[in-house]
């Protein structure tokens, strides 16, 4: 049987299927091979999945729509290099689901904002951006300080991320593998059975929001912001090395 033009044009279901087949070619050719290419993700040390507190911070980041104004991808161009620092590596967002790359920059890129400011600055800036940057057009987020953090489902969130391939551990075997891969301190943070304790401990020990004794949404968000772009120690690598990966 030969398929004729007319058959396709008069059968909308068939046409739809064929359109889907044609437009998926681009995606299949560009994306699928990356899964099997060895050099898609640079081999660097230090990148680890988020801690439970950072996971919640990231959720809040997404809930508040911060990504609408902020990207988290520094591109390999000179102006970006000078302003933000080292360009982002694929390795650095390997545990991000969904990634926060983006190209919409009403505000600056945040891929390397970790360590750039103090916790106190972040708290003040979230509460009232214009109190520290008078020209800012960023909205105020005062409720982050008044809302207690809901962490009741953090273990479930880790379980969901585990399904997508993030190495949070459920079994002793997985835990041992994490110890080997990330060292005991990080492996403990990745242990789903300790999620809540870890979250509370990190929030209390580091007290990101400056309010002792309370765990607010601000604690989580600032913990997340302070982790951004800090995991790879670039002084350990020769720049030419990264250029072999693309």
């Amino acid at each position, binding site marked *: 049987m030969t398929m004729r033009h007319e058959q396709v044009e008069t059968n909308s279901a068939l046409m739809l299927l064929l359109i889907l087949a044609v437009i998926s070619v681009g995606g299949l050719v560009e994306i699928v*091979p990356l899964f*099997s290419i060895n050099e898609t993700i640079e081999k660097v040390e230090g990148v680890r999945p988020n801690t439970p507190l950072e996971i919640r911070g990231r959720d809040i980041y997404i809930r508040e729509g911060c990504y609408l104004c902020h990207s988290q991808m520094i591109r390999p161009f000179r102006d970006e290099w000078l302003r933000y620092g080292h360009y982002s590596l694929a390795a650095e967002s390997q545990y991000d689901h969904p990634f926060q790359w983006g190209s919409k920059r009403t505000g600056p890129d945040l891929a390397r904002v970790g*360590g750039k400011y103090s916790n106190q600055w972040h708290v003040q800036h979230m509460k009232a951006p214009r109190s520290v940057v008078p020209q800012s057009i960023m909205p105020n987020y005062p409720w982050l300080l008044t809302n207690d953090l809901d962490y009741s489902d953090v273990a479930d969130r880790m379980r969901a991320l585990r399904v997508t391939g993030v190495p949070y551990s459920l079994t002793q075997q997985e835990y041992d593998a994490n110890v080997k891969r990330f060292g005991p301190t990080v492996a403990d943070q990745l242990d789903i059975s300790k999620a809540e304790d870890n979250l509370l401990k990190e929030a209390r020990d580091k007290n990101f929001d400056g309010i002792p004794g309370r765990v607010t949404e601000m604690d989580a968000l600032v913990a997340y912001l302070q982790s951004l772009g800090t995991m790879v120690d670039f002084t350990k690598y020769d720049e*030419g090395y990264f250029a072999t*990966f*693309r």
Partner: protein
Amino acid sequence: MSDNKLNAAQQSGAVQTTGHAWDGDLQEYNNPLPRWWLWCFYGTVVFSVLYWFIYPSWPVGQTWLKGFGKVDYTIVDKKTNKVEEREQRWNTRALLLADLGEAANNEQRKAMLSKVRAASHDQIVKDPKMMEFVRSVGKGLFGDNCAACHGRGGQGVVGMYPNLSDDDWLWGGSMDKIHETLVQGRKGFMPAFEGVLKPEQLDDVAEYALVLSNEAKPSEASERGKEIFQGQIGGCYYCHGADAKGVPSQGAANLTDKIWTIANVPAQKTLQDKKAVLKTLIANGVNNTRIMPAWKGRLNDDDIKLLAVYVQQLGGAK
């Protein structure tokens, strides 16, 4: 639109139809594409094949076609510290390295930078050319990295971030000290005196702080405050100095001038309020709220040196 008359060319059959007919008489003309357009199209097809050879393209098994394109760049080898010429297959990361290398090799900038690198602080400040360079580079660096806390002009925010545009320094205003501040960061710390001193004693010592800065006249209360300040109970002199002019190694503020970095004394109208803000500050101390991040690792050595000179000049220091 309702006028369905055919024009002459169409009637004569010069323009053909696609051959489909709907509803009995609804037909579609088949107008061939202009020739120039077609040639452009073929051109892009040919280019796409060339593209496969020049640039990274098709995936093949666990790797991909890398292309014949090359990029040359110079880089300082991290291990040997020597400048190396390298060749690398084409990609945007290699292009960036080439671009950065070129920028670093810009004769003027390179000459300036090596001059600044070799020069002592005094030499830089005395050389108008070098200072011009410091100001132009420093302004950009300051805007990107420091302005969010210290303000665009370095004016700071009372209570949170110190003013860098006056010649009053917590940690010392010499080039070396400012350099040290930038490299390792700073953390302001003063113990909380709530509980250590009784409320009346806090009042007294706050009164003394007002006297020190000439806000109030000496009184009995301030004399009692002085004893606490200079004695073992308060031990304020330990950090602020017996003359209360501050001890830079502790980052402790000078209390004898009218410049306030934490307690917003000038904004208070009455003496009562001035004393109240000081009392609150002394009671609470400063812990974990005044943190200056460390910039080593984030900024390179040249940038830090340029910034140190820039910041010192903001303060109008000689």
